[in-house]
């Protein structure tokens, strides 16, 4: 059992939890993720690690309410226990001094990009961060990202905050003007990562993406998270979650992410009905 120590609503659909998980906090690295199951009847879902504190023994995660499990999770309050948390999973990010790195976070993808940007900054890199979302209230952690970046660009699709653009527009400008950029790291919706990779491919800049596939055990046993990378089937849970974005078959990833749309709808509607939520 894992206790929720702190809860913060970052927007009406995005929530932050700080969770008591000493053993995991001891080992976690930027780029890792964990799996969570709320209760006995719950499903196992992978969530990203947004931060951690080894001394306090805590993990921070940020999640968006999209399906039944994340809606339910969002109703839990401080002091409540989550039944199962499994981690740290996946291969951590490779951290070294590349020189200049662009870190891109889209939507809730801002959260997992933060510890990676921080580690890269500590390793001596110059960090240019781009954080973007559909609209103003989905942007969070602007100050935290600024603190680990040499330059921060904020975009919203509707222009309600920062620059009215998708993240690939400032990215394209940066790559065009600055030939010193050695690496781009992008975490966010698959469609965003796909277009980031399309943009960076034009400039031949290495791009790392972190894939958010559907998973069950997340230890390599089931293969639910499989995706083609460079023509080979890889498991996002144990071979990733980070991959060379130029080799990922994003169209396949997006189709696989939608495999249970019907079931997700049934589960969410049933949940809303049960608790009278509109």
């Amino acid at each position, binding site marked *: 059992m894992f206790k929720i120590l702190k809860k913060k609503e970052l927007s009406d659909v995005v929530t932050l939890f700080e969770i008591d998980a000493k053993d995991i906090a001891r080992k976690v690295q930027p780029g890792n993720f964990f799996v969570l199951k709320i209760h006995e009847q719950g499903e196992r879902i992978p969530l990203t690690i947004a931060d951690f504190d080894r001394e306090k023994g805590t993990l921070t995660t940020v999640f968006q309410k999209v399906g039944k499990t994340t809606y339910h999770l969002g109703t839990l309050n401080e002091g409540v226990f989550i039944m199962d948390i499994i981690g*740290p999973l996946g291969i951590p990010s490779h951290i070294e001094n590349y020189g200049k790195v662009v870190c891109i976070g889209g939507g809730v993808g801002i959260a997992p990009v933060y510890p990676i940007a921080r580690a890269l900054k500590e390793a001596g890199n110059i960090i240019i961060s781009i954080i973007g979302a559909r609209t103003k209230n989905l942007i969070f952690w602007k100050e935290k990202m600024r603190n680990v970046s040499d330059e921060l660009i904020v975009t919203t699709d509707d222009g309600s905050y920062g620059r009215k653009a998708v993240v690939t527009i400032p990215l394209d400008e940066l790559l065009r003007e600055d030939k010193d950029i050695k690496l781009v790291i992008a975490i966010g919706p698959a469609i965003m990562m796909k277009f980031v990779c399309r943009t960076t491919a034009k400039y031949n800049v290495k791009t790392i993406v972190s894939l958010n596939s559907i998973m069950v055990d997340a230890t390599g046993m089931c293969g639910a998270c499989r995706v083609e990378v460079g023509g080979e089937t890889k498991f996002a849970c144990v071979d990733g979650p980070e991959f060379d974005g130029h080799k990922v078959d994003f169209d396949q990833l997006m189709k696989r992410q939608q495999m249970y749309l019907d079931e997700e709808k049934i589960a969410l509607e049933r949940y809303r009905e049960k608790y009278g939520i509109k």
Partner: protein
Amino acid sequence: MEGKKEEKKPKNRVKMREQDPLTRARNFNEVPYGYTPFDAVEEASRCLSCKRPTCREGCPVEVDIPGFISLIKERKFLEACYKVKGKNALPAVCGRVCPQEIQCESLCILGKKGEPVAIGNLERFVADYEAEKGEIKVPEKPKPTGRKVVIIGSGPGGLTCAADLAKSGHQVTLFEALQKPGGVLIYGIPEFRLPKVIVEREVEYIKKLGVELILDAVIGKLYTVDELLNDKGYDACFIATGAGLPIFMGILGENLNGIYSANEFLTRANLMKAYLFPEYDTPIKRGKKVAVFGGGNVAMDSARVALRLGAERVYLIYRRSEAEMPARKAEVHHAYEEGIEFLLLTNPTRFIDDGKGNVCGVECIKMELGEPDESGRRRPVPIKGSEFQIEIDIAIPALGTRANPLLTKTMPDLKLNKRGYIVAEEETGMTSKLGVFAGGDIVTGAATVILAMGAGKKAARAINEYLKWKYWDFKS
């Protein structure tokens, strides 16, 4: 039933009553009902109590088979159960899923002329009888040795090793990566073949022996084996992490939606109880036309689960003929009875996309048997031009597993074979790393529950010796 009392000893074994095939194909309840006490005594009375019982040699966990059968004859059912449990901590599991026909029962003298004693059915009976009577006896706690042993993986191998070591007085910690203990007994074998309450019951017994069970702990990630041995003070370690990564076929379209590895399909259905969706949150696709690929027990289980999820037609596609199928005969028979359609000497060549990323068909090719291969079985060879297509909406490759490197790659000083399995001595489980033993599927590749249990038992014995003398002589 009662009328039978008048008859003489039956020549044939007492059949276990089963759910009707067409009814059971639509529910997840257990298929056989089990023996009544009357059935059990009648079956036990067929045992000749041989002076030199050969059946015992066929039991990887050394159960005193004639001993417990004699007690059944005397209607001492509880004592019979305690006798079994002296060697086997998982009798209700083994009574159901052990391939007795190639082990103890294959050596029974009665089998030479007729049917061997139904040792498995009797084992199941005594275990269920004990549970039903609620008289679970826990042996007296031995004097603590002060030694600590850590076991990685709570499947049949890990549970057996844990039970034996706890009975020897060692402090045992058992780590499990999933949220429930039991390994393949929980995630793999379906409810209708092994009800999960039975696994839970046998795990409870092992906990009562004093074993500490820690769930949700992925060793290799949460701790390394070196941390456990050096920082956490464990004196020895047994690795029983089981079968690993599912094998896909490497054919076109295998990542289409609707294609599940057998591991995923069974894990969703069994561990996550997706067959109860939306009561349980984990979804599973319920196909109308399902194709399962492979000829082992896992393939049979997958096909039978698909049927129970409501499929109209379930095809079992296997590239060899029925004679080469590695599955238990009883499971193949059950699958046939329930209406699984066997397409033998058939191999898939590609999956067909419905244009939206879902599988809508599979192209197969007919095979014929050629010369024997290295496994001794005749190698299937494709027949040119015999391709044909079948309409399906779910496909389940059940083609075995490869070694999962998640733990072993954190142990550079552990010797692996070229396929990534741990090199361990067969009789002891001893590995190239001091204090580390291994057994079960992570050593042998995918095998059976009972072989993993046998490995757990041998390792427990070897760990006992090691803890006394701290002597390490690995030759391999």
